[in-house]
């Protein structure tokens, strides 16, 4: 066998200066040639550890083999057999901690770029749609399942159940399907056309989409179960923004990341006034937090014309939960970082606009429950940062609406719904849950994995 190549093909990207001023996608995607060179590095090892690292168990060596042999329809088929949303996962999954971490070449520092290849195959399908042919629909079982929420958890559960012939309706509170993929993650990281394409694919399996349907208001879980559905899957995510609860947080110019990103992404405020929804952009913006959400908000603010954008994080760089790649992208674009810093209060002017942020310096103490070192306030270290806009990106918890309108669900003190991890079953008969509503804010792929596991046991339940 030829010597294994350790030259991982880099992802072509827009130039940092140019991209910091537009909302076009940052990563441009491989060419067919690049994809095949990268695919050729795969040694097709029999152990398939990569597949074990994938929460939805994609046959990774299988689709890579088809790709390298130039059999694209086959590559699409293998990929989509396990993953209904490959164009999304190829873009936003943390492969570096999942499949690519398990790749045998990871030890040599050059794992196969599985995410990039996944994206390439998904994008090829979109560009050559007809080549793969229409989906064949299974015989209907006559069983009805209601899916609440159209994020990755709901879409995956819906696709799996529809493929088995069940009649599936997704109820979504917002005016479009996709959940965080539509309202949270920005266009330059995950184009909305890609999301809608994959939503359309799920719909093409026979899944009905009921948009504008806030469950808990328009109807309840109990009524759905009573009226016509044999099973319900809750995939309503973690949509409630957390605030710092410090003085000045209601000043004008202080946004939750959810509001800021929803205005920019879902409502397309980056195209105001062509689109009606506005968003304020300051000259000196501070984004508080260290996750993907903070990176996304910071990079949006920069693109919309802020002079300086600081990410303010209370621990150090090593503890940041954001994907490495996105931190690098943010740095290249000129986002600045203030580590070991935590706000104490916001200062405002007569008109209630934020003008400053008083912060503490922090040090790191003993590890806490999350395993990360606990940030501790340095006494007397207060200083004021000049800001005219703040985005608070501290994380989210589940919206209490579903739990408060459904009898007999068990929830934790964080508002998450308690389930059996292997099956997604809640303590309430006929009700399953998965994704961020169970775990709190996590990842697209873990939500999809949960949707898949639930679909499996829902199907068994419907048979019984």
């Amino acid at each position, binding site marked *: 066998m030829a010597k294994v190549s350790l030259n991982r093909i880099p992802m072509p990207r827009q130039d940092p200066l140019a991209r910091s001023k537009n909302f076009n996608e940052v990563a441009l995607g491989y060419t067919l040639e690049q994809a095949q060179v990268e695919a050729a590095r795969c040694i097709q090892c029999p152990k398939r550890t990569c597949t074990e690292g994938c929460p939805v168990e994609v046959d990774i060596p299988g689709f890579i083999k088809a790709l390298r042999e130039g059999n694209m329809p086959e590559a699409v088929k293998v990929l989509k057999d396990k993953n209904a949303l490959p164009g999304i996962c190829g873009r936003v999954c943390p492969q570096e901690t999942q499949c690519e971490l398990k790749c045998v070449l990871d030890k040599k520092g050059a794992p196969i770029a599985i995410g990039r290849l996944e994206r390439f195959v998904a994008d090829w399908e979109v560009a050559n749609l007809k080549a793969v042919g229409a989906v064949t629909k299974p015989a209907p079982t006559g069983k009805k399942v209601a899916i609440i929420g159209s994020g990755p958890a709901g879409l995956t559960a819906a696709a799996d159940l529809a493929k088995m012939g069940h009649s599936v309706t997704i109820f979504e509170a917002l*005016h479009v399907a996709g959940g965080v993929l539509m309202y949270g993650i920005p266009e330059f990281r995950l184009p909305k056309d890609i999301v809608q394409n994959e939503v359309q694919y799920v719909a093409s399996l026979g899944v009905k989409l009921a948009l*504008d349907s806030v469950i808990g*208001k328009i109807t309840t879980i109990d009524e759905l179960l009573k009226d016509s559905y044999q099973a319900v899957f809750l995939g309503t995510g973690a949509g409630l*923004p957390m605030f710092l609860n410090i003085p000045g947080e209601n000043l004008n110019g202080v946004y939750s990341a959810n509001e800021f990103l929803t205005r920019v992404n879902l*409502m397309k405020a980056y195209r105001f*006034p062509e689109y*009606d929804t506005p968003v304020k952009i300051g000259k000196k913006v501070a984004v508080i937090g260290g996750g993907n959400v903070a990176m996304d908000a910071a990079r949006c603010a920069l693109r919309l014309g802020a002079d300086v954008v600081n990410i303010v994080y209370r621990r150090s760089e090593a503890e940041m939960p954001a994907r490495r790649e996105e931190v690098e992208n943010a740095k290249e674009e000129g986002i600045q970082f203030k580590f070991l810093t935590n706000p104490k209060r916001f200062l405002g002017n007569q008109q*209630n606009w934020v003008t400053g942020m008083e912060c503490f310096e922090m040090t790191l103490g003993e590890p806490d429950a999350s395993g990360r070192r606990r940030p501790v306030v340095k006494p007397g270290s207060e200083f004021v940062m000049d800001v005219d806009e703040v985005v608070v990106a501290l994380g989210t918890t589940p*919206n209490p609406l579903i739990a408060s309108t459904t009898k007999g669900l068990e929830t934790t003190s964080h508002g998450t719904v308690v389930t059996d991890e292997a099956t997604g079953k809640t303590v309430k008969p006929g009700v399953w849950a998965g994704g961020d509503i169970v775990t709190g804010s996590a990842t697209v792929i873990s939500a999809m994995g949960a949707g898949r596991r639930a679909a499996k046991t829902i199907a068994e339940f419907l048979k019984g």
Partner: protein
Amino acid sequence: MYKILVREELVPHIHLFKVAAPEVAARAQAGQFVVVRIDEKGERIPLTLADWDSKEGTVTIVFMEVGTTSYRLGALKSGDSIANFIGPLGLPTHMEKFGTVVCVGGGLGVAPIAPIARGLKQKGNKVISIMGARSKNLMFWENELRRVSDELIVTTDDGTYGRKALVTEPLKELLQGTKKPDLVVAIGPSIMMKFCAKTTEPFGVKTIVSLNPIMVDGTGMCGACRVSVGGVTRFVCVDGPDFDGHQVDWDLLFARQRIYLDEEKRSLQQWQCARQTCTEVQK
């Protein structure tokens, strides 16, 4: 898509739409609101329910042209459709038998106060309604409100109709009267609601107001609608829109309502220019 079945211009710049929205109508209760988005490029804006008919499957909204979205809405005709019509959102107004209730509707607030007055009367309350407008030609739904009230007091700021007074004057007289009301519900411009609350406060009469901050989703997801009530931050779209007027931080509400004034101006100018109805300001 949600079809506009009836469109009526109640008074200049204030329109009534009856919209086909059976699922919303089936669950609607007084005090709740809908979020409306006109089309692909539209904003999501909240509008309080003015009426509904669950048998007919319709919901009635009344709105005033003030910004781009409401002007764009106002330009729609009956038979046209609205892309999104989401609700019923928020908590319904709490209704029970209180005794005597004063319902104050100022300007546009007459529309949402009507179903509340109706509900309170059905619960066996004595309902005294006060409706106010700047001038006679801006007055609508006098008969609608009269029908659901035991007494109706009408005021105009300029005295062109009814009593020349602000709504707070008859309100104060009722509070000073022999039979002090047990509850006041006030809906209208924020400044009016604030002054109603200030009027009732010394009398210790509980005063419910329906707050109207800027919203985006209307489901508790963004926090755009946050207000401070009794020193605690609340989301109006899920914790309200009704709150105890004596506890509301009014200055914060006013300030937060003004966040996008510049953008709103710019957006409206652009829309009007595109329709060639813009004034010389833009030239």
